[in-house]
């Protein structure tokens, strides 16, 4: 083998190998021209957008201010620039171009790398934004103050071949540095996460009654992964049998040329009968598996129907169906028994250390997640944290997360005006935003006169008038601490003008402090009074989707307060969810939180194109919730999950745990994995789970040989 390997590399080296040089990435004059055209067109578009921004005529993106909208538009334009320049470069390359061969056969590099070498390096970003100002109001002294043009904000128009200008070079290093720092930090973070996960899950094993329990014998799952199948034995997409492949295999190994093809009802009846006879023992866990078999055969019948219909000549039917949808009686039998064997073989065996496997299966892909890329939750302005930081939030069960988002379904989801009204009821509106003036009046009495801007209120479809404002000033919204000056106001201090719906007076309360100071304090506090909406919500955005041709709207609410949003009029509370686990637990209970944990983790992983078997995620979410509350995989959470002192001491805060145990005279039963390793016992997991009892019959004492026989004494 060794020699053969050496032979291969020599052969490649002499006959088939290649290297790459500068000539492989030199752009042709034509490509340079195309690139120039693309870039100048893009720059023009950017300039137009910047001009609009400066004039204030730029159209706002939903939920963004003017600058954010501009950045978003520019981001789109500049991103497309690099992309189209890259595409042109790739198009220009012949098939024999060596970098292209490397990229296409997947040995190293990607079209992105090639286009960076040949055409354009593209926009550099730090922290997900274009390069921010490092000097006074500009990125570098080479540019004008407040300049927003692409080159001044880190767009590298040159390629590595043509060479970067000085400013481009520095921007590129800034972007590159972030990447390096990110990988360095991420390895440490994922490593720690892996250790914590392992500690929390190490002692979970499958028992002989098919339940997953920890070393204290507490049940974590009654059936592993809901169906007690082993994730490592899955054939296809977390499912035990890939039916198409099995069908192909059976039709090749059992051609049965003499038998008749089963059609439609015959086939389905045959399958039905076989399932009833042989597969009933799989229920209830295999309910889905049985469903899959049935739907597979239904598909086959459908295919048969299509094939027959498309055949003009009846003699072709046999020929056409042969490889695609032919099933004879023997084949069905063989197919089903093979599927049954596969399923039974895929069942997890008692003793399996499902916890340890799960911990590894979740943390290993975690190390592959590079860069904390943001992702858009439908609307482009709603960023969701992803990657390792988000995974950390979930696993720690953090109370404060960086991007809490509530997705709220509307009762009437086809009506944009209705959606606006509901949105207005949720998004917080302050008094300062809806009043046209707030005047100090020093006349006999001292008071503040407030005029509500009824026109604006009407336009925004708010439900505000002088009465509601008065109530808000006096009562405030629950759960918010109000400034002391407002707490000093009583009923008779806030008056409404008779017959008016929009004018209020706020009298200065009588106190020791001079009226002027109180007036000033009022003037500061009153504009901040929330007159409508939920205080914990930052903003809400209406998201439009097309469902079957009709537009459908739902709300994306940034902030906390699931319970309040669910209760808001016009919201369909039953379909309103959040990505904040603790909030789900508090308003909907542990079971809901459990579901959220696994779906949130799989959402992150899917965003990176990583698939983790759901059974691992289910196990993790069950471990985090089996104590009745959501426990993070942190030292506090793990301490609540497990009793063993030795295990906890080997995790974190060693002395604290040992000291505490010594104080209270704790006992440790030594059945967990960590404890057993510390004490040098075999861990009760896998083959170590059971003990063997042997009936002891006392053996006859071996005869003691005499001294003479042992030859110790010389005769």
């Amino acid at each position, binding site marked *: 083998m060794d020699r053969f390997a050496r032979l291969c590399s020599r052969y490649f080296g002499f006959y088939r190998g290649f290297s790459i040089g500068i000539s492989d990435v030199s752009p042709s004059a034509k490509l340079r021209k195309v690139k120039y055209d693309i870039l100048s067109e893009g720059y023009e578009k950017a300039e137009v957008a910047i001009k609009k921004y400066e004039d204030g005529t730029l159209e706002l993106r939903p939920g963004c201010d003017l600058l954010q909208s501009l950045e978003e538009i520019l981001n789109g334009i500049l991103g497309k620039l690099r992309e189209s320049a890259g595409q042109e470069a790739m198009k220009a390359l012949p098939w024999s171009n060596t970098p292209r061969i490397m990229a296409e056969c997947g040995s190293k590099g990607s079209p992105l790398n090639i286009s960076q070498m040949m055409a354009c390096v593209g926009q550099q970003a730090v922290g997900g934004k274009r390069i921010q100002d490092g000097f006074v109001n500009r990125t570098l002294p080479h540019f004008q103050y407040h300049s927003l043009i692409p080159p001044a904000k880190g767009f590298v128009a040159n390629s590595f071949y043509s060479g970067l200008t000085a400013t481009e070079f520095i921007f590129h290093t800034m972007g590159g540095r972030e990447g390096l720092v990110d990988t360095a930090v991420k390895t440490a973070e994922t490593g720690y996460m892996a250790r914590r996960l392992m500690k929390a899950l190490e002692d979970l094993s499958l028992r002989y*009654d098919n*339940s997953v*329990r920890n070393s204290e*014998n*507490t*049940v974590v*799952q*009654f*059936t592993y*992964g*809901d*169906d007690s*199948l082993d994730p490592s034995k899955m054939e296809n997409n*977390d499912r035990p049998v890939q039916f198409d492949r099995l069908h192909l295999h059976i039709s090749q190994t059992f051609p049965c040329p003499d038998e008749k093809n089963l059609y439609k009802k015959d086939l389905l009846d045959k399958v039905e009968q076989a399932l009833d006879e042989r597969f009933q023992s799989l229920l*209830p866990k*295999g*309910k*889905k598996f049985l469903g899959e078999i049935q739907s597979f055969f239904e598909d086959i019948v459908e295919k048969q129907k299509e094939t027959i219909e498309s055949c003009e000549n009846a003699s072709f039917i046999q020929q056409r169906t042969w490889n695609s949808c032919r099933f004879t009686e023997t084949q069905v039998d063989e197919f089903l028994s093979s599927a049954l064997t596969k399923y039974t073989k895929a069942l997890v065996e008692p003793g399996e250390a499902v916890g340890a496997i799960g911990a590894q299966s979740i943390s290993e892909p975690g190390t592959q997640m590079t860069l904390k890329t943001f992702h858009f939750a439908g609307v482009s302005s709603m960023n969701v944290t992803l990657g390792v930081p988000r995974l950390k939030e979930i696993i720690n069960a953090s109370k404060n997360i960086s991007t809490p988002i509530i997705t709220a379904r509307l*009762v*009437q989801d086809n009506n944009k005006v*209705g959606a606006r009204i509901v949105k207005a009821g949720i998004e917080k509106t302050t008094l300062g935003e809806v009043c046209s003036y707030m005047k100090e009046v020093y006349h006999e009495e001292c008071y503040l006169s407030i005029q509500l801007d009824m026109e604006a209120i009407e336009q925004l479809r708010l*439900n505000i*008038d002088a*009465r509601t404002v*008065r*109530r808000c000033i006096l009562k405030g919204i629950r759960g918010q601490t109000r400034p002391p000056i407002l707490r000093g106001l009583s*009923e*008779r201090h*806030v*008056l*409404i*003008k*008779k017959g008016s719906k929009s004018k209020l*007076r706020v009298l200065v309360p009588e106190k020791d402090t001079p009226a002027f100071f109180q007036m000033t304090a009022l003037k500061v506090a009153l504009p901040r009074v929330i007159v409508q909406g939920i205080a914990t919500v930052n903003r809400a955005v209406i998201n439009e989707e097309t469902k079957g041709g009709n537009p459908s709207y739902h709300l994306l609410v940034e902030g906390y307060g699931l*319970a309040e949003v*669910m*209760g808001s*009029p*016009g919201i369909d*509370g*039953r*379909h309103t*969810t959040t990505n904040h686990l603790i909030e*789900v637990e508090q*308003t*909907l*209970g*542990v*079971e*809901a939180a459990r*579901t*959220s944990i696994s779906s949130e983790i799989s959402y992150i992983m899917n965003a990176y194109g990583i698939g983790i078997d*759901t*059974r691992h995620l*289910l196990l993790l979410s069950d471990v985090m*919730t*089996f*104590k*009745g*509350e959501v426990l993070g995989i942190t030292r506090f959470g793990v301490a609540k999950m497990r009793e063993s002192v030795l295990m906890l001491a080997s995790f974190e805060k060693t002395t604290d745990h040992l000291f505490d145990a010594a104080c209270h005279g704790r006992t440790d039963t030594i059945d967990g994995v960590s404890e057993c390793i510390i004490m040098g016992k075999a861990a009760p997991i896998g083959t170590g789970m059971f003990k063997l009892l042997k009936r002891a019959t006392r053996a006859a004492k071996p005869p003691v040989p005499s001294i003479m026989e042992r030859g110790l004494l010389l005769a």
Partner: protein
Amino acid sequence: MMEVDTPTEPTNFNRGGGGVTLTPEASRLFRVYKTVSSMLTKRGYMVSREMREMTPMSFTERFGEFPSREGLTILVEKPDDSTNQLFVFFPEDEKVGVKPIKILTDRMKDEQVSNAILVLRGDITPFAKQAVMEMSDSFRIEHFKEPELLVDITQHTLVPEHLVLSQNEKQELLKRYRLRETQLPRIQPNDPVARYYGMKRGQVVKIIRPSETAGRYVTYRVCL
């Protein structure tokens, strides 16, 4: 020229759906009332059909356009045991103190009802909470805040079906898996769903949830 506001005049607000226009306050109460009635049904109390199938229309018909909370009071009983009764009170106060609770318990004493649910507008004072705790031997008084009952959480997509097991079923379960009570997965007594079903310590709930891998999965949690 200036007058003090009197908070009786209603502000009309179209909820934008259903066709029936309720005042915001009435629609709030209707939603709470609806949740309470489905909660009582799920707890196994006999709830009249009229209550179960109440629409905004019939709600206004029965309780008027500006329903008083006093009038909403409900008394229900278990079908098999007519002495096992439960009161649902809707106290008017923003913050319920000891005094109103005293009045309610007196009424419970008079009518020999041992269970009650308070639906609070705002909150309950710490003293009142303590008083309720002290009385827990003779009267079991649960309290919910109105905002919690606006939506029936058991209808939520994330919340699976919960069924509270009887004592016999619980013993059978423990025997089947050879478990002690403490070895079951848990649910806290103050968990929203546990409170919805009024679970007591030691009761076991059977949870039937849809499963991605098995189609349907059954698990149990003990209230501890």
